[in-house]
């Protein structure tokens, strides 16, 4: 019986039609990968952007069920609003079920708080590109580290103010400029401001405005790989932007202890899907698309940056390495194991004269 099932499995896995005569054990690679990942752990960098008072730090704390935001790391609640946009990164190591995750939360206090908010997205854009640059430098080194520390921003949560009317100009400007260098996930903050009908109206209007502005938020339509992906992602895209409420306080409701906010007329339960869409956001972000976020960042955003950099001063980079023909060619050849999209990019970069 055992051999039968394995043979069955074998006939599934062979695409070219050659049936396996016995159980080889190829499918144990998944187990091996799992063990390796558990040992090495992985990095995840999330950036939160939005003007002050939208509950960004609270939401991040609620998402990862621990005090990971900068507010908990020592900054006081009523700190003065900085005059320019600051970038503050705080790292923690979380462990669950034997899997270790190094979570870095990048906060941007001062965004959108000034009277004149022109170019307040520039420090953020600079930071993102700096992380790509760091990674690129490590990659083109001759003696590379076994595991390059990944500080690139995998996901940017953009907090939309719940005015109930439409996106603000600043929101549109920011997302337009950054949707091509990082995965942006727009989120409607403090959703307990709006009733259910107001929320639906607002979401529709925001979606329309995002479409009109040509803003591609994550999951981007162009990177859907197959029909299954497309249908899953379509469902998610219809429900975005998620209207969330964050809280790190617990209250007793119907004999259960839930995270929520207590007001004079009721308790807003954070994880109740009838009250807000926090549970959906958490499942989407952590339970189903975490790895995909990292992959899109690595395969697409980082590759775009790399191609641009190599295009502008490929000669400079070649000088960084000693004049050995193999190295130069290595820089220019397309790298294996990546999506065809980036191969297209690399081919453009290829300089036959070299």
């Amino acid at each position, binding site marked *: 019986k055992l051999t039968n099932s394995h043979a069955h499995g074998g006939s599934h896995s062979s695409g070219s039609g050659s049936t396996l005569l016995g159980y080889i054990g190829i499918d144990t690679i998944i187990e091996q990968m799992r063990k390796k990942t558990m040992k090495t752990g992985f990095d995840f960098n999330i950036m939160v952007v939005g*003007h*002050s*008072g*939208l509950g960004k730090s609270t939401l991040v704390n609620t998402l990862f069920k621990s005090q990971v935001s900068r507010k908990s790391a020592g900054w006081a*609640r*009523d700190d003065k*609003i900085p005059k320019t946009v600051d970038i503050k990164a705080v790292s923690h190591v979380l462990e669950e079920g034997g899997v270790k995750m190094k979570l870095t939360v990048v906060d941007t206090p001062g965004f959108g*708080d*000034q*009277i*004149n*908010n*022109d170019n307040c997205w520039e420090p953020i854009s600079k930071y993102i590109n700096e992380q790509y640059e760091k990674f690129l430098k490590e990659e083109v080194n001759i003696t590379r580290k076994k595991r390059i520390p990944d500080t690139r921003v995998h996901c940017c949560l953009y907090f939309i*103010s*719940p*005015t*109930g*009317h*439409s996106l*603000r*100009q*600043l929101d549109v*400007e920011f997302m337009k400029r950054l949707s091509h260098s990082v995965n942006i996930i727009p989120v409607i903050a*403090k959703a*307990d*401001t709006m*009733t*259910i009908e107001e929320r639906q109206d607002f979401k529709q*209007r925001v979606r329309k405005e995002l479409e009109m502005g040509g803003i591609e938020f994550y999951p981007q339509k162009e990177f859907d790989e197959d029909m299954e992906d497309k249908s899953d992602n379509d469902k998610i895209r219809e429900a975005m932007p998620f209207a969330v409420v964050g809280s790190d306080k617990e209250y007793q409701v119907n004999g259960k202890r839930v995270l929520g*906010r*207590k*007001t*004079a*007329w*009721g*308790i*807003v*339960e954070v994880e*109740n899907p*009838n*009250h807000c869409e926090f549970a959906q956001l958490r499942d989407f972000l952590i339970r189903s698309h975490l790895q995909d976020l990292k992959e899109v960042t690595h395969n697409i955003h980082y590759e775009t940056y790399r191609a641009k950099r190599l295009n502008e001063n490929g000669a400079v980079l070649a000088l960084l390495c000693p004049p050995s023909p193999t190295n130069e060619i290595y820089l220019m050849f397309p790298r294996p194991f990546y999506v065809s999209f980036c191969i297209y990019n690399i081919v453009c970069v290829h300089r036959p004269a070299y």
Partner: protein
Amino acid sequence: MVGRRCSSVRDKNPLLQQKNLEGYVGFASLPNQVYRKSVKRGFEFTLMVVGESGLGKSTLINSLFLTDLYSAEYPGPSHRIKKTVQVEQAKVLVKEGGVQLLLTIVDTPGFGDAVDNSNCWQPIIDHIDSKFEDYLNSESRVNRRQMPDSRIHCCLYFIAPSGHGLKPLDIEFMKRLHEKVNVIPLIAKADTLTPEECQQFKKQIMREIQEHKIKIYEFPETDDEEENKLVKKIKDKLPLAVVGSNTIIEVNSKRVRGRQYPWGVAEVENSDHCDFTILRDMLIRTHMQDLKDVTNNVHYENYRSRKLAAVTYNGVDNNRAKGQLSTKSPLAQMEEERREHVTKMKKMEMEMEQVFEMKVKEKVQKLKDSEAELQRRHEQMKKNLEAQHKELEEKRRVFEEERANWEAQQRLEQQKLEASRTLEKNKKKGKIF
């Protein structure tokens, strides 16, 4: 009560003695007369609302005055895309218990919505100043029977419920406007905050307001103990956290105005839920007249003294009396204006006369021209006639000539005929011979 009042009058003016009345005179009905007159005249009140879009300003106005000043079809901010801050007025006449109130709501769409909001308060300041200017001008007129009061009596400033503190824009705006108008800061959409967050937020805001020395509207102290207690209660709750709504929901078989959430109903008129009732009572029921008085006595006077001082100052003046070096009191300036007016009239008269003369000349000229033209034509016609006459004469002469010729010929023929006949006769006669 009456005794106390009288004693205060006596304290202020020790020469006044209180006389006891020996009968009923009737001047106790003075307040009634004032009341009746005021009711007939009606009241005016102008309210300005300022804040970023989406803070529920329109909803709050609707809730406060229980009218649909901003109906559901009124386009929301997403449709009113403005590049600069606009100032819009809406007037509504409300009647209640025989008392008329002309309510003007001044709205400022576009405030704080752009990416760069520097000077977004400037259109608002200009508007307030222009209203003061209008009132100043109508006060300085000769005929002052009609003095419409469109000055802004109160400015409700909406603070976004971030829970942290005031934004730089809020501070800048209030700093610039607290000397020009009564500023009442409100926390908008207060159902976002839990009671503890609300308390903390209010304390933080009051601290920042004091730190930046912003003078928000102060509730006046009264002599009455009861009222003082109420006033103190209000002062503790500043800034007021409000929620607006006009939708009616059933709660515990009671119909209340509120907002329906899946986790409960936030009632607008419940003082445990928000401070809306306090705002309404304060704004309409108790302090409306005081707001008007403060605007008139403090803000307007400030504006007026600044404006008139600019007139009399030698160096910079920014009104019509340019280049005048003398120090003038307003009366003298009025004289000057009258003289100017008279000279202007004279000039206009002269101009008119000139114009009149010119026109007369033109007409005369035209008539002369037409006369000459007629004359010319007359001559021409005469010439034509003469020519025709000559022609005709010529023809006649020719005709006469021909006729004469023809007659002559006829005679000749006749003669010939005669001659031939006589010859024939003679021949015949001769033959016989």
